[in-house]
Protein backbone atom coordinates (compact mmCIF):
# COMPACT_ATOMS: atom_id res chain seq x y z
CA UNK A 1 0.00 0.00 0.00
CA UNK A 2 2.63 2.45 1.09
CA UNK A 3 4.70 1.64 -1.91
CA UNK A 4 1.88 2.45 -4.25
CA UNK A 5 1.22 5.75 -2.61
CA UNK A 6 4.80 6.76 -2.88
CA UNK A 7 4.77 6.27 -6.60
CA UNK A 8 2.03 8.42 -8.03
CA UNK A 9 1.22 8.14 -11.70
CA UNK A 10 4.32 9.59 -13.17
CA UNK A 11 3.89 8.17 -16.62
CA UNK A 12 2.42 11.08 -18.52
CA UNK A 13 2.49 13.90 -16.00
CA UNK A 14 4.80 16.81 -16.65
CA UNK A 15 6.03 16.37 -13.10
CA UNK A 16 8.07 13.41 -14.22
CA UNK A 17 10.60 15.96 -15.45
CA UNK A 18 11.30 16.81 -11.82
CA UNK A 19 13.45 13.69 -11.99
CA UNK A 20 16.99 14.83 -12.86
CA UNK A 21 17.43 11.81 -15.08
CA UNK A 22 14.58 12.89 -17.33
CA UNK A 23 15.19 16.61 -17.08
CA UNK A 24 18.83 16.35 -18.17
CA UNK A 25 18.12 15.25 -21.78
CA UNK A 26 15.05 17.49 -21.98
CA UNK A 27 17.17 20.52 -21.04
CA UNK A 28 19.76 19.53 -23.61
CA UNK A 29 17.13 19.24 -26.33
CA UNK A 30 15.35 22.51 -25.48
CA UNK A 31 18.28 24.85 -24.89
CA UNK A 32 19.33 25.30 -28.56
CA UNK A 33 15.77 26.23 -29.54
CA UNK A 34 15.58 28.91 -26.89
CA UNK A 35 19.02 30.16 -27.89
CA UNK A 36 17.92 30.40 -31.53
CA UNK A 37 14.74 32.21 -30.49
CA UNK A 38 16.82 34.61 -28.40
CA UNK A 39 19.11 35.38 -31.35
CA UNK A 40 16.20 35.92 -33.76
CA UNK A 41 14.27 38.09 -31.29
CA UNK A 42 17.39 40.15 -30.55
CA UNK A 43 17.85 40.90 -34.26
CA UNK A 44 14.20 41.93 -34.62
CA UNK A 45 14.34 43.90 -31.39
CA UNK A 46 17.49 45.80 -32.37
CA UNK A 47 16.02 46.58 -35.77
CA UNK A 48 12.91 48.02 -34.10
CA UNK A 49 15.07 49.84 -31.54
CA UNK A 50 17.35 51.58 -34.02
CA UNK A 51 15.50 51.78 -37.33
CA UNK A 52 11.78 51.84 -36.57
CA UNK A 53 11.34 53.55 -33.21
CA UNK A 54 11.29 57.33 -33.64
CA UNK A 55 13.54 59.88 -31.98
CA UNK A 56 12.17 60.81 -28.56
CA UNK A 57 10.69 64.28 -28.46
CA UNK A 58 12.24 65.09 -25.06
CA UNK A 59 15.39 63.02 -24.87
CA UNK A 60 16.53 62.76 -28.47
CA UNK A 61 18.48 59.60 -29.28
CA UNK A 62 19.91 58.77 -25.86
CA UNK A 63 16.60 57.21 -24.85
CA UNK A 64 17.47 54.21 -27.08
CA UNK A 65 19.25 52.79 -24.04
CA UNK A 66 15.72 51.91 -22.88
CA UNK A 67 15.60 48.87 -25.19
CA UNK A 68 18.15 47.07 -23.06
CA UNK A 69 17.80 48.91 -19.78
CA UNK A 70 14.14 48.11 -19.12
CA UNK A 71 14.16 44.47 -20.29
CA UNK A 72 17.33 43.85 -18.26
CA UNK A 73 15.82 45.44 -15.16
CA UNK A 74 12.64 43.38 -15.60
CA UNK A 75 14.67 40.20 -16.04
CA UNK A 76 16.80 40.90 -12.98
CA UNK A 77 13.61 41.02 -10.90
CA UNK A 78 11.81 38.12 -12.62
CA UNK A 79 14.81 35.83 -12.35
CA UNK A 80 15.07 36.53 -8.64
CA UNK A 81 11.39 35.70 -8.16
CA UNK A 82 11.79 32.47 -10.14
CA UNK A 83 14.82 31.62 -7.98
CA UNK A 84 12.71 32.23 -4.89
CA UNK A 85 9.93 30.10 -6.39
CA UNK A 86 12.23 27.15 -7.05
CA UNK A 87 13.75 27.56 -3.59
CA UNK A 88 10.30 27.39 -2.02
CA UNK A 89 9.40 24.35 -4.10
CA UNK A 90 12.68 22.74 -3.06
CA UNK A 91 12.08 23.41 0.63
CA UNK A 92 8.49 22.18 0.56
CA UNK A 93 8.71 19.23 -1.82
CA UNK A 94 12.34 18.40 -1.13
CA UNK A 95 13.11 18.10 -4.83
CA UNK A 96 16.80 18.28 -5.67
CA UNK A 97 16.26 19.64 -9.14
CA UNK A 98 14.47 22.74 -7.81
CA UNK A 99 17.57 23.80 -5.91
CA UNK A 100 19.75 23.13 -8.93
CA UNK A 101 17.46 25.37 -11.00
CA UNK A 102 17.75 28.14 -8.42
CA UNK A 103 21.54 27.89 -8.57
CA UNK A 104 21.59 27.81 -12.36
CA UNK A 105 19.46 30.96 -12.53
CA UNK A 106 21.46 33.14 -10.14
CA UNK A 107 24.42 34.14 -12.37
CA UNK A 108 22.12 35.15 -15.23
CA UNK A 109 19.96 37.20 -12.89
CA UNK A 110 23.07 38.89 -11.55
CA UNK A 111 24.25 39.57 -15.11
CA UNK A 112 20.96 41.30 -15.97
CA UNK A 113 21.16 43.23 -12.72
CA UNK A 114 24.61 44.54 -13.70
CA UNK A 115 23.31 45.41 -17.17
CA UNK A 116 20.40 47.35 -15.66
CA UNK A 117 22.72 49.26 -13.31
CA UNK A 118 25.41 50.03 -15.89
CA UNK A 119 23.05 51.07 -18.67
CA UNK A 120 21.11 53.09 -16.10
CA UNK A 121 24.29 54.92 -15.14
CA UNK A 122 25.13 55.58 -18.80
CA UNK A 123 21.61 56.88 -19.34
CA UNK A 124 21.57 58.89 -16.13
CA UNK A 125 24.68 60.89 -16.91
CA UNK A 126 23.34 62.72 -20.00
CA UNK A 127 19.76 63.02 -18.71
CA UNK A 128 20.19 63.68 -14.96
CA UNK A 129 23.80 64.85 -14.97
CA UNK A 130 24.91 62.02 -12.68
CA UNK A 131 25.90 58.40 -13.17
CA UNK A 132 24.55 57.50 -9.78
CA UNK A 133 22.19 58.89 -7.17
CA UNK A 134 21.10 57.18 -3.97
CA UNK A 135 17.42 57.25 -4.71
CA UNK A 136 15.11 54.40 -3.68
CA UNK A 137 14.98 52.74 -7.12
CA UNK A 138 18.73 52.67 -7.68
CA UNK A 139 19.54 51.69 -4.12
CA UNK A 140 17.07 48.80 -4.02
CA UNK A 141 18.34 47.59 -7.41
CA UNK A 142 21.90 47.64 -6.05
CA UNK A 143 20.68 45.64 -3.06
CA UNK A 144 19.27 43.09 -5.52
CA UNK A 145 22.75 42.67 -7.00
CA UNK A 146 24.18 42.06 -3.52
CA UNK A 147 21.44 39.50 -2.87
CA UNK A 148 22.45 37.65 -6.04
CA UNK A 149 26.11 37.78 -5.02
CA UNK A 150 25.19 36.64 -1.52
CA UNK A 151 23.20 33.71 -2.86
CA UNK A 152 26.03 32.63 -5.16
CA UNK A 153 28.77 33.09 -2.55
CA UNK A 154 26.83 31.21 0.12
CA UNK A 155 25.85 28.25 -2.06
CA UNK A 156 29.43 27.98 -3.33
CA UNK A 157 30.99 28.31 0.11
CA UNK A 158 29.02 25.61 1.94
CA UNK A 159 30.49 22.20 1.21
CA UNK A 160 27.51 20.03 2.03
CA UNK A 161 25.19 20.48 -0.96
CA UNK A 162 22.00 19.95 1.04
CA UNK A 163 22.92 22.58 3.59
CA UNK A 164 24.08 24.90 0.80
CA UNK A 165 20.72 24.43 -0.92
CA UNK A 166 18.80 25.28 2.24
CA UNK A 167 20.93 28.32 3.06
CA UNK A 168 20.63 29.60 -0.50
CA UNK A 169 16.89 29.04 -0.47
CA UNK A 170 16.55 31.17 2.65
CA UNK A 171 18.47 34.07 1.09
CA UNK A 172 16.38 33.72 -2.08
CA UNK A 173 13.10 33.77 -0.15
CA UNK A 174 13.98 36.54 2.28
CA UNK A 175 15.50 38.65 -0.51
CA UNK A 176 12.37 38.30 -2.63
CA UNK A 177 10.78 40.95 -0.41
CA UNK A 178 13.13 43.42 -2.09
CA UNK A 179 11.62 42.83 -5.54
CA UNK A 180 8.27 44.57 -4.96
CA UNK A 181 10.21 47.29 -3.16
CA UNK A 182 12.25 47.87 -6.33
CA UNK A 183 9.21 47.78 -8.54
CA UNK A 184 7.06 50.15 -6.51
CA UNK A 185 9.91 52.35 -5.26
CA UNK A 186 9.14 54.94 -7.94
CA UNK A 187 5.60 55.20 -6.59
CA UNK A 188 6.25 54.98 -2.87
CA UNK A 189 9.11 57.41 -2.72
CA UNK A 190 10.06 60.57 -4.50
CA UNK A 191 12.70 59.22 -6.83
CA UNK A 192 14.79 60.85 -9.51
CA UNK A 193 14.15 57.69 -11.50
CA UNK A 194 11.05 58.03 -13.66
CA UNK A 195 7.88 56.04 -13.07
CA UNK A 196 6.96 52.75 -14.73
CA UNK A 197 7.32 52.86 -18.51
CA UNK A 198 4.67 50.25 -19.08
CA UNK A 199 1.50 49.87 -17.09
CA UNK A 200 -1.33 47.43 -17.49
CA UNK A 201 -3.91 49.91 -16.31
CA UNK A 202 -2.92 53.06 -18.17
CA UNK A 203 -2.67 53.71 -21.88
CA UNK A 204 0.95 53.46 -23.03
CA UNK A 205 2.82 56.71 -22.64
CA UNK A 206 5.19 55.94 -25.48
CA UNK A 207 5.03 55.41 -29.21
CA UNK A 208 3.75 51.98 -30.20
CA UNK A 209 6.98 51.15 -32.04
CA UNK A 210 9.06 52.02 -28.96
CA UNK A 211 6.88 49.76 -26.85
CA UNK A 212 7.10 46.98 -29.45
CA UNK A 213 10.90 47.21 -29.52
CA UNK A 214 11.05 47.00 -25.74
CA UNK A 215 8.72 44.02 -25.56
CA UNK A 216 10.58 42.12 -28.27
CA UNK A 217 13.85 42.73 -26.42
CA UNK A 218 12.16 41.51 -23.23
CA UNK A 219 11.12 38.29 -25.01
CA UNK A 220 14.67 37.90 -26.28
CA UNK A 221 15.92 38.21 -22.70
CA UNK A 222 13.47 35.55 -21.58
CA UNK A 223 14.58 33.13 -24.29
CA UNK A 224 18.24 33.86 -23.50
CA UNK A 225 17.71 33.29 -19.78
CA UNK A 226 15.97 29.96 -20.39
CA UNK A 227 18.69 28.75 -22.78
CA UNK A 228 21.59 29.73 -20.52
CA UNK A 229 19.91 28.35 -17.41
CA UNK A 230 19.28 25.01 -19.09
CA UNK A 231 22.89 24.88 -20.27
CA UNK A 232 24.10 25.74 -16.79
CA UNK A 233 21.93 23.27 -14.96
CA UNK A 234 23.03 20.27 -17.04
CA UNK A 235 26.57 19.88 -15.70
CA UNK A 236 25.19 20.76 -12.26
CA UNK A 237 22.84 17.77 -12.52
CA UNK A 238 25.68 15.45 -13.53
CA UNK A 239 27.82 16.61 -10.60
CA UNK A 240 25.09 16.27 -8.04
CA UNK A 241 23.80 12.95 -9.36
CA UNK A 242 27.23 11.48 -10.10
CA UNK A 243 26.53 8.37 -8.06
CA UNK A 244 23.51 7.45 -10.15
CA UNK A 245 23.83 4.81 -12.81
CA UNK A 246 22.40 6.91 -15.61
CA UNK A 247 25.17 9.50 -15.04
CA UNK A 248 27.78 6.77 -15.43
CA UNK A 249 26.19 5.84 -18.74
CA UNK A 250 26.11 9.50 -19.76
CA UNK A 251 29.80 9.87 -18.88
CA UNK A 252 30.64 6.73 -20.84
CA UNK A 253 29.19 8.39 -23.90
CA UNK A 254 31.20 11.55 -23.21
CA UNK A 255 34.55 9.82 -22.66
CA UNK A 256 37.11 11.21 -25.08
CA UNK A 257 34.81 13.99 -26.26
CA UNK A 258 35.60 16.76 -23.77
Amino acid at each position, binding site marked *: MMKEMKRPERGKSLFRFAAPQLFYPLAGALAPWFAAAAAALTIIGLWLA*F*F*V*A*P*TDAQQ*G*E*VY*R*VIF*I*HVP*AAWMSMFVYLIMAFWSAVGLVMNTRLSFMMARALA*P*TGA*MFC*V*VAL*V*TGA*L*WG*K*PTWGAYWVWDARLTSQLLLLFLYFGFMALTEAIEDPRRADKAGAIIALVGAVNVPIIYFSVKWWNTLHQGASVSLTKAPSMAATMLAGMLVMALASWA*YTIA*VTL*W*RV*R*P*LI*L*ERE*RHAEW*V*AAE*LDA*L*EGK*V
Partner: protein
Amino acid sequence: MQWESWSAFWQMGGAAPFVWGSYGITALLVVGELIMVMRRRKDALRRLLRLRRAKAGGSGGRRAFEEIVE
Protein backbone atom coordinates in the same frame (compact mmCIF):
# COMPACT_ATOMS: atom_id res chain seq x y z
CA MET B 1 14.07 55.13 -41.62
CA GLN B 2 15.21 57.44 -38.82
CA TRP B 3 18.64 58.36 -40.06
CA GLU B 4 19.88 60.73 -42.75
CA SER B 5 23.16 58.88 -43.11
CA TRP B 6 25.20 56.14 -41.51
CA SER B 7 27.39 58.69 -39.80
CA ALA B 8 24.29 60.25 -38.22
CA PHE B 9 23.36 56.77 -37.06
CA TRP B 10 26.73 56.19 -35.40
CA GLN B 11 26.69 59.65 -33.79
CA MET B 12 23.31 58.98 -32.15
CA GLY B 13 22.53 62.67 -31.96
CA GLY B 14 25.63 63.27 -29.84
CA ALA B 15 24.81 60.50 -27.37
CA ALA B 16 27.08 57.93 -29.02
CA PRO B 17 29.25 57.10 -25.96
CA PHE B 18 26.19 56.48 -23.80
CA VAL B 19 24.10 54.55 -26.30
CA TRP B 20 26.91 52.50 -27.85
CA GLY B 21 28.59 52.14 -24.46
CA SER B 22 25.39 50.59 -23.07
CA TYR B 23 24.96 48.20 -25.98
CA GLY B 24 28.66 47.35 -26.06
CA ILE B 25 28.93 46.52 -22.37
CA THR B 26 25.75 44.44 -22.56
CA ALA B 27 27.11 42.50 -25.54
CA LEU B 28 30.39 41.87 -23.68
CA LEU B 29 28.57 40.63 -20.59
CA VAL B 30 26.36 38.29 -22.62
CA VAL B 31 29.28 36.86 -24.58
CA GLY B 32 31.29 36.58 -21.36
CA GLU B 33 28.50 34.69 -19.66
CA LEU B 34 28.15 32.28 -22.58
CA ILE B 35 31.89 31.59 -22.53
CA MET B 36 31.78 31.02 -18.77
CA VAL B 37 28.87 28.59 -19.08
CA MET B 38 30.68 26.56 -21.77
CA ARG B 39 33.92 26.56 -19.79
CA ARG B 40 32.13 25.56 -16.61
CA ARG B 41 30.52 22.65 -18.47
CA LYS B 42 33.86 21.46 -19.81
CA ASP B 43 35.54 21.71 -16.40
CA ALA B 44 32.71 19.82 -14.71
CA LEU B 45 32.70 17.03 -17.29
CA ARG B 46 36.49 16.66 -17.20
CA ARG B 47 36.42 16.51 -13.41
CA LEU B 48 33.70 13.88 -13.42
CA LEU B 49 35.51 11.78 -16.01
CA ARG B 50 38.78 11.98 -14.04
CA LEU B 51 36.94 11.08 -10.86
CA ARG B 52 35.46 8.05 -12.55
CA ARG B 53 38.77 6.92 -14.01
CA ALA B 54 40.43 7.37 -10.62
CA LYS B 55 37.78 5.27 -8.94
CA ALA B 56 38.05 2.58 -11.57
CA GLY B 57 41.87 2.54 -11.60
CA GLY B 58 43.73 0.53 -8.91
CA SER B 59 46.28 1.78 -6.35
CA GLY B 60 47.27 5.03 -8.04
CA GLY B 61 43.64 5.82 -8.36
CA ARG B 62 43.06 6.36 -4.68
CA ARG B 63 45.40 9.33 -4.42
CA ALA B 64 44.07 10.89 -7.61
CA PHE B 65 40.59 10.41 -6.25
CA GLU B 66 41.37 12.25 -3.02
CA GLU B 67 43.11 15.00 -4.94
CA ILE B 68 40.04 15.60 -7.06
CA VAL B 69 37.63 15.40 -4.19
CA GLU B 70 39.53 18.21 -2.51
